């Protein structure tokens, strides 16, 4: 069963990060960690976050701070299964498309509705995790049945050639 536990919020705006953390805290099963730079987030990827809410710009920290796209690429390279949701004050379509191109699960514009959208994104990610888990299970079951069926066919052929079974079942 899909189980979402660890969420990262990565934003250099303390108010934005705090508001999102507070909003999502109503779900007590989430362990939410806040980082104010991409570098800090990357250092902590060993905590295996399932979802990362990542700011697009880190201008507050300084010119040399990694930007959101660079961090996104690094997260996906190290933890491909981690879903990254980009957060930005920009509502330009090319920024959103660019983020999706590098593997972002979704793109949310910072606004009054951003928090509710974040919640919906988490539910979508949980659904996807469930479906992926079910798909893996069905693949395994299909493989088991295919092997069992193959073994059964081989057994029938061997028995038939050994004369142990005939093609006349005897009830005609």
């Amino acid at each position, binding site marked *: 069963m899909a189980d979402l536990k660890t969420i990262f919020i990565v934003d250099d*705006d303390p*108010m934005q990060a705090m*508001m999102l953390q507070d909003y999502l805290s109503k779900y007590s099963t989430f362990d939410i960690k806040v980082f104010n730079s991409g570098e800090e987030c990357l250092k902590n990827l060993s905590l295996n976050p399932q979802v990362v809410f990542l700011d697009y710009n880190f*201008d*507050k920290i300084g010119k040399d701070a990694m930007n959101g796209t660079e961090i996104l690429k690094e997260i996906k390279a190290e933890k491909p299964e981690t879903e990254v949701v980009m957060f930005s004050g920009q509502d330009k379509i090319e920024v959103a498309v660019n983020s999706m191109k590098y593997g972002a699960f979704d793109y949310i514009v910072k606004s009054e509705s951003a*928090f509710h959208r974040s919640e919906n994104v988490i539910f979508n990610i949980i659904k996807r995790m469930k479906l992926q888990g079910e798909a893996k299970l069905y693949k395994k079951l299909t493989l088991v049945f295919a092997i069992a069926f193959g073994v059964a066919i081989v057994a029938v052929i061997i028995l038939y050639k050994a004369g142990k079974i005939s093609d006349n079942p005897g009830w005609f």
Partner: protein
Amino acid sequence: MSNRVTDLTFLQSFTGGNKDKMNKYINIFLQMCPGQLDAMQSLLTSGNYDALRATAHSLKPQITYMGIKQGEGIIKTIEQYAGEKINTEQLPALMDSFNDICRKALVELQEEVNKTTV
């Protein structure tokens, strides 16, 4: 007729009317906004439009959350003009308007915090 520049409807809804939480966010804004306004003014004076755009960009969501409706449009314009380096002659006047609105907002928000902590 009210001349208020702040509308705390969103914040009230977001916090479920919890005064402590509202004050927490308002206090963050009260701490950060004056410095950001001064920074924007200084960047404009020095002609550093890229940094002005970046500062406007980060202040923008907070203006929305504090319900400073009159400031939303102005800061978006400042961000755009500084970012694209167009109509830069309009930036001083825009910055003055934005400053006035924000200073009023800061007073109103401080009153809001004082009102609930007395």
